[in-house]
């Protein structure tokens, strides 16, 4: 009996080992492939902003900038909306509305990135462009809105990212809110709290997990590729302007990987991938840690 159980454990464990080793293999493989670039440029790779494959000059600062800028902007837009949805579904809405709303947010998450991108090119970008044109000149003078009204650029990318991030953040935030004991809300109500004040108490109780939910959305935004690639304008520059076409780490890999003729170029792109891998690893790890501390291990599972 015992020995057969061990056989069972070993055989299923072997598959589990495959799963775990894939993550290690990704890290190893990306490091190996990017060694050339790491050795040649060192830390300068991340501090310089000249991206000139022809001259063999590779500085990835614009991509880091574009990735962080677009993701943080998206987060600023998406977080209040996502928490609002989570609160509405878990605390406010009539029970019959709950399932349909959950389904719709799931659908929002399930629509392929490429479809968002297609919609972005043909619907969102023209709309953003007319918005940019309609902006009064006095505002256009600000660095935030400088540059020609192209439509493609940071604003379009951030908007589309926000749409894509909302369902992730709201789903996790909803799960986290569900783990708040009813007693917390009751305690607030019993002291004469309004509905808002009682929900605020619940959100406060769940704050760690909600920060985790927001970070999970951040992780998604950082790695999002197709939709962003199609609307951000793909121009490697460090600009504060919302209207400026910029570039992200994921987008440059998507666009230039097959064109990378020489080894250094390829290594530079893989290095960007490696850093993207590490950043998302850290962000997701932190976010899961927060969600787990909040909800205990059982509910943390829902956040996967």
């Amino acid at each position, binding site marked *: 009996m015992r020995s057969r159980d061990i056989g069972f454990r070993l055989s299923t464990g072997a598959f589990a080992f495959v799963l775990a080793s894939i993550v290690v293999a990704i890290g190893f493989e990306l490091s190996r492939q990017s060694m050339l670039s790491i050795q040649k440029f060192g830390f300068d790779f991340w501090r310089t902003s000249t991206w000139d494959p022809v001259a063999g000059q590779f500085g990835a600062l614009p991509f880091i900038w574009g990735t962080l800028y677009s993701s943080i902007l998206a987060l600023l837009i998406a977080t209040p909306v996502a928490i609002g949805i989570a609160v509405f579904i878990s605390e406010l809405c*009539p*029970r019959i509305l709950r399932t349909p709303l959950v389904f719709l947010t799931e659908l929002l998450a399930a629509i392929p990135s490429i479809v968002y991108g297609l919609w972005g090119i043909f619907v969102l970008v023209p709309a953003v462009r007319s918005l940019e044109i309609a902006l009064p000149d006095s505002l256009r003078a600000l660095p935030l809105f400088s540059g020609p009204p192209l439509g493609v650029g940071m604003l379009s990318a951030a908007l589309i990212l926000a749409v894509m991030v909302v369902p992730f953040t709201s789903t996790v935030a909803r799960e986290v809110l569900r783990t708040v*004991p009813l*007693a*917390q*809300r*009751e*305690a*607030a*109500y*019993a*002291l*004469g*709290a*309004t509905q808002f*004040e009682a929900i605020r*108490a619940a959100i*406060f*109780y769940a704050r760690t997990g909600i920060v985790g939910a927001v970070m999970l959305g951040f992780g998604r935004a950082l790695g999002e590729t197709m939709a962003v690639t199609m609307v951000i304008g793909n121009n490697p520059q460090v600009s504060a302007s919302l209207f400026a076409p910029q570039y992200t780490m994921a987008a440059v890999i998507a666009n230039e990987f097959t064109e990378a003729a020489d080894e250094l170029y390829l290594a530079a792109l893989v290095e960007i991938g490696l850093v993207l891998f590490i950043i998302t690893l850290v962000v997701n790890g932190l976010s899961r840690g927060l969600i787990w501390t909040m909800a205990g291990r059982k509910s943390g599972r829902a956040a996967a």
Partner: protein
Amino acid sequence: MTGQIANPSIRLKAPTPTARPTEGAANRERDVKIDVEHLSFFYGAKRALEDISVKIHPNVVTAFIGPSGCGKSTFLRTLNRMNDIIPGARVEGTARIDGNDIYAPGVDVVGLRRRVGMVFQKSNPFPKSIFENVAYGLRINGMAGSKAELAGRVEESLRQAALWDEVKDRLQESALAMSGGQQQRLCIARALAVRPDILLMDEPASALDPIATQRIEELVYDLKKAYTIVIVTHNMQQAARVSDHTAFFWLGRLIEYDRTDKIFTAPAEKLTEDYVTGRFG
């Protein structure tokens, strides 16, 4: 009538429409703090309370006893409209506090709950400091003008809850680091801080050890000088120890309501007697 009742005496002797302690001529018993008439409570289609009428007097401790599921907690929660937050809950009949119908349209539920404090079965401190827990109700209700006033009221409440001496040096520590009994007294302090005149306690000691329970009971005894206290308990010794009046609930109905000594020594109803003597429940 309910067909599933096994004991025929119930059908014969239905409780009087308005129960009220009959003996005792203390002055305070002429006053009525909470006056409930023909109150029924429904969860969706299910009737959880059936035609409850009761007059609760100020500055006494009234205990609700009965087997679990008998409706005593549900009834308690109708008195500060806590059941409102349950979807599908519905109330019929009237409940007056100081003569005002709390279920009348346009009643300020938030204000009602401030005046009718509640302590729950399991202590439920907020994940904040001891000080902030007590200050919470004061802050949301805007009841303290200055920092000094806030601190004063927090101290006063903690003293009332007999907790001050234990926590005065660690007010900024997390409430979650306290013992279970301390947490429950903190919740009492939190409820007292907003100066309610009624305190509802839903099995406040059921999760505590005997020593912590004794402290809560002593506290209840002290607090009745200033508050009208209604306490739900499944522990009959506790009801006998702390309460002046006792109401016995069974299957969503109020079977008997009288002075506590009467309930425990010479109940009018056979069912009450069976319950207090431990024949069921």
